[in-house]
């Protein structure tokens, strides 16, 4: 019953008025940016990073986590009412959700999305609470060789799960690793690739990189076209009928299960989970014909999956100290700002932080249910703000946020550079997410490789003679080979297309 007492500790932490407030603030902001197309959780968390300096680690993490899973709720509102994904993970929700709105069933679609998200969020949080401790126990036994190989596997998995060309994704990972190495080498004190710029001595600011690639590059993209939005104002009753609920129970559970599994994988998280859940639902649900024409199961499954995926993507972060997506990479940054080295030791050394975060997720999901059902009108009103007003705010906030992390003008110049680079990447169909993961993992990989080689007295075979490390590497190679093999590639493309 250790779990219960741990959870009790977490609940005590999460229920302090300060943490409750920040949890609410997080999920509120998350819903807000989720509803707004063109502003995602990555840019928002990056903007708020400087604000967390003054908070303790627990309220900081509780708030930032709330933004991430809160955005999954908000994204569905925009998808259903405007046929635009508020978040990329709500793309598939728009398929059936918008049709439902056109058929005059916007209310039940919104209601079902919120209910599905709530159930999925709670179950996935339990999965997190059950599986993280044993995983952390295993991770504590890892040596540097295991860490290096596991990160390699993580990056390969991120490549496989990225959409678009595999080769380009691998190249993006490598470029990310190299960018991550910029700055002072911790071992020799040598400054690498800084061109003598003092502001680069501590490396490239991750916030500048993330906001450029995910925030402002998208702003430019959105400014290309004059958008036209038609918002469905008439929503009607939010409560789905009993037959809707009965119809969706299976979809919600399948979506939750799939989302929980995919969320753990590197590169997975909420986005992939929602796509996979919709595809699965189309295959197994009977009768399948109604998908794409306003089938409520096409809303319930992906919305459950993306919320479950958002919750379980915390597992690698909290047990291994390894991010599975760009949002988690930012949370690592937030932890380090607080002076906490992310890794398996967090759970034992700071149980109040770990369990407090988990308990806050349950509370946060409850708050989201309230925020999204009775207060739906507020979010709908928000959707009528035209982008021409919004983008100025995004731009100013990104600039202020980037500057404030280190009070460094160099960092805003970097923001400019990565905005430009990010826009070019979009035009060349290169996904930025693998680059970001490489950027975070690159320096860790170098350090672990260096340690592994020092222990083995320079023998590189240590990576393949230690069984666990060898297993990780073999798996990586197998994955890469199967991806490049033409027959499987065709299948993968077909799957990602759907």
């Amino acid at each position, binding site marked *: 019953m250790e779990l219960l007492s741990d959870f009790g500790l977490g609940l005590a932490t999460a229920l302090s008025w300060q943490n409750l407030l920040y949890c609410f603030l997080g999920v509120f902001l998350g819903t807000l940016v989720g509803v707004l197309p063109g502003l995602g959780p990555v840019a928002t968390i990056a903007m708020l990073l400087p604000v967390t300096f003054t908070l303790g680690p627990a309220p900081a993490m509780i708030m930032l986590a709330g933004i991430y899973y809160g955005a999954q709720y908000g994204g569905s509102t925009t998808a259903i009412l405007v046929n635009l994904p508020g978040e990329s993970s709500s793309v598939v929700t728009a398929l059936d959700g918008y049709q439902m709105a056109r058929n005059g069933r916007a209310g039940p679609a919104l209601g079902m999305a919120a209910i599905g998200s709530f159930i999925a969020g709670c179950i996935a949080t339990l999965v997190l609470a059950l599986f993280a401790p044993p995983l952390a126990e295993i991770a504590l036994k890892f040596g540097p060789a295991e860490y290096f190989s596991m990160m390699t596997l993580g990056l390969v998995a991120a490549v496989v799960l990225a959409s678009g060309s595999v080769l380009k994704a*691998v190249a993006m990972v*490598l470029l990310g690793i190299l960018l991550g190495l910029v700055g002072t080498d911790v071992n020799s004190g040598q400054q690498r690739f800084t061109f003598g710029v003092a502001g680069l001595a501590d490396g490239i600011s991750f916030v500048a990189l993330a906001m450029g690639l995910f925030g402002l590059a998208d702003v430019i993209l959105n400014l290309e076209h004059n958008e036209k939005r038609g918002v469905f104002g008439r929503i009607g009753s939010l409560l789905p009928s009993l037959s809707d609920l009965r119809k969706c129970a299976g979809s919600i559970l399948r979506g939750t299960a799939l989302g929980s599994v995919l969320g753990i994988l590197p590169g997975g998280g909420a986005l992939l989970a929602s796509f996979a859940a919709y595809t699965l639902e189309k295959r197994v649900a009977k009768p399948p014909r109604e998908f794409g024409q306003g089938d409520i199961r096409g809303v319930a499954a992906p919305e459950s999956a993306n919320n479950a995926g958002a919750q379980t993507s915390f597992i690698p972060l909290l047990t291994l100290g390894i991010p599975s997506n760009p949002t988690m990479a930012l949370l690592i940054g937030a932890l380090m700002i607080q002076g906490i080295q992310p890794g398996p030791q967090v759970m034992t050394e700071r149980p109040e932080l770990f369990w407090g975060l988990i308990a806050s997720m349950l509370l946060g999901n409850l708050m989201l249910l309230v925020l999204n059902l009775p207060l739906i009108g507020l979010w709908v009103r928000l959707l009528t703000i035209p982008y021409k007003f919004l983008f100025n705010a995004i731009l100013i906030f990104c600039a202020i946020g980037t500057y404030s992390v280190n009070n460094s003008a160099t960092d805003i110049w970097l923001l*400019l550079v990565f905005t430009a680079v990010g826009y070019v990447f979009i035009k060349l169909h290169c996904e930025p997410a693998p680059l970001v993961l490489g950027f975070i993992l690159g320096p860790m990989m170098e350090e672990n490789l260096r340690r592994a080689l020092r222990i083995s*007295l320079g023998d590189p075979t240590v990576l393949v003679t230690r069984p666990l490390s060898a297993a990780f590497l073999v798996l990586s190679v197998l994955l890469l080979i199967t991806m490049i093999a033409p027959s499987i590639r065709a299948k993968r493309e077909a799957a990602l297309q759907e």
Partner: protein
Amino acid sequence: MKPLSRDVLAGLLFAGAGIGFVIMSRNYNFGAGTRMGPGMFPTLVGSLLALLGAVIALRGLRSDAGTPDRFHLRPFVLVLLAIAVFTILVEPLGLFITTLLTVAVAALADRELSKRAAAVTAVVLAIGSCVVFVTLLGLQLAIWPSFFG
């Protein structure tokens, strides 16, 4: 001449970056197995990137991957310019005036935004960001120019 496909361009970019990192790494000690120098890891990764970039470019030449999506110069240049304005001015002029000027530049990126609406947006954002970020959140930013005392 046919425009280059986006894979060729991407491949060349990757290859160039990889080669650049390898060349720069030659200034750093490569080290040996037991003691990896600061140059070893970037040289290995950079070489891999250069190689991969070449492969992507060559495959792009043979297959028809499609040309890059249209590059919209107006929002691109104006957004970058707005960031530059912010960067240069925020320390000497303070957040309030900088925000006004940054929005003045950025607003040009959207043709739909009238001058009046842009002015209102600028003032609202300037006041809002000063109040939220400096007064409420206590970020280390000056609101007014330093010569105002």
